């Protein structure tokens, strides 16, 4: 069993420890779970199940939260 996996988190290539779950990833990144949504390979995960999704090599994770915004603002 390999020690590390290669994943993408919010578009950035990252190397993570094998066996980590989505909940572990959030904890390692210092992100509180109660205010974010997580998409794993385009599928939105149920917050209660973050700990059940084990990350695999090549996974694409998107972590989103709320920012200031009103009406569409051109970035």
């Amino acid at each position, binding site marked *: 069993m390999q020690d590390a996996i290669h994943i993408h988190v919010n578009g950035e290539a990252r190397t993570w420890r094998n066996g980590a779950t989505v909940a572990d990833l959030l904890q390692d990144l210092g*992100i509180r779970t109660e205010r974010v*949504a997580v998409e794993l390979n385009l599928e939105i995960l149920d917050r209660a199940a973050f700990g059940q999704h084990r990350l695999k090599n090549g996974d694409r994770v998107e*972590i989103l939260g709320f*920012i*200031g*915004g009103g*009406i569409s603002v*051109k970035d």
Partner: protein
Amino acid sequence: MTDDRLVIAGREFKSRLWIGTGKYKDFVETQKAIEASGADVVTVAVRRVNITDRSKDNLLDYIDPKKYTILPNTAGCYTVEDAVRYSRLARAAGVSDLVKLEVLGDERTLFPDTAGLIEAAKILIKEGFIVLPYTNDDPIVAKKLVDIGCPAVMPLAAPIGSGLGIRNPYNLKIIMETVKVPIIVDAGVGTASDAALAMEYGADAVLMNTAIAGARDPLAMAEAMKYAVHAGRLAYKAGRIPRKLYATASSPIEGML
């Protein structure tokens, strides 16, 4: 006007001024502007969390979701697929089924793509979302949105961030007469009189962001908007006098020498 509550999809709102949280200097200014405006609905956008710099504060540390209704939007979405995806993410990240649905048609005008809007609204309503659609000042589209189940419609006054004020008061009035759900005038307000006018025409609420955040003194403008919306609502309920071409004396002739 404590008995004059705005009700949308069974939810009661105290304030008829809703504000966006974009473009402020920092979260402290955002928080102070919301307080000065008296708004109890604030819109937010859904974006990637910064994973490299976790020292950055979270907006919701400054806006208590227990005190304010957090209304996520789909700002920046130009396709039905994106708008639906962001709505689902907002629901997954948030606390409710509310979404301010935007499907934009063009970067220069940020006008809504109303065909895409209706399509996205249908999908989301089927999934149990409470869809508040940002739409054009088109009475036919407004009616279609209501017919498919939107509990309110949000027609623009003018292009987003333009500050042009209400460009087509007659279309807005037709929308107010033809749809039986709350109308929230959204986007294009420049100053307090624009907001007051929208309310005098009979809008149920006004949503703005740039008019406050972009003012030289955002906190003072937030307060001005609070009074404008309140005054406009009172004037609407009081009923204005008809316009006449010639004068009507307000002092009696009787008793004159």
